[in-house]
């Protein structure tokens, strides 16, 4: 298992994605799946950076592990900010026209679509969001 403890700020997004990409490259992950994972990681990390400690900032703890000889990855995010389950956010209606659609609101939807499983729990003062994806 690899871990990254980092201040949850937008400016640190590149460092977070670099950490994830390094791990995925070790597992020979395809570019397509790497992008699906990266954009899911971006949404969750940016959510923590934007809301968890607002108006202050705080830390995020990210862990990466693989299972089944590197064919499944599990990424989890922990923060000690306000309890918040992003998975409860209602999915956008993607059948509307461009006029009718709201800009934004796609982030968590993309996480749900791109990951095989996503779980949230609030435990001992921590928000813990875990996502799982089969990569080969």
């Amino acid at each position, binding site marked *: 298992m690899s871990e990254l403890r980092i201040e949850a700020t937008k400016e640190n997004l590149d460092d977070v994605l670099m950490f994830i990409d390094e791990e995925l490259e070790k597992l020979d992950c395809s570019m397509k799946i790497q*992008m699906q994972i990266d954009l899911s990681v971006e949404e969750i990390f940016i959510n923590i950076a934007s809301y968890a400690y607002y108006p202050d900032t705080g830390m995020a703890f990210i862990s990466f592990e693989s299972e089944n000889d590197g064919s499944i990855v599990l990424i989890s995010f922990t923060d000690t900010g306000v309890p918040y389950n992003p998975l409860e956010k209602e999915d956008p209606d993607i*059948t509307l026209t*461009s006029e009718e659609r709201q*800009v934004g609101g*796609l982030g968590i*939807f*993309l996480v749900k679509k791109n990951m095989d499983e996503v779980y949230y729990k609030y435990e001992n003062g921590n928000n813990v969001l875990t996502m799982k994806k089969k990569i080969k």
Partner: protein
Amino acid sequence: MLNINTEKNGNELTFKLSGRLDTVTAPELEAPVRNDLSGVSDLIFDLKDLEYISSAGLRVLLLAQKTMNKQGKMVVKNVSEEINEIFEVTGFSDILTVE
């Protein structure tokens, strides 16, 4: 890191994007989308060298599409397979004109 190469030809405006369109870089594209579309009847996004798009980038594309609905047309071209799949999943394939 995002690079935006802008080409203006009469009423036609092209944004050629390379690099990553994410939460950090999307505001760099949102500024010209909000400020530089007046008088533009044809807007083209060339995504040939775009490696990555997240929801923050999709948001700016939708913003541009909404503006162009009122004043002309918008085309997105040279979309990679990876990005096209994000368009499919989010319904953007139906609301954007992808060439």
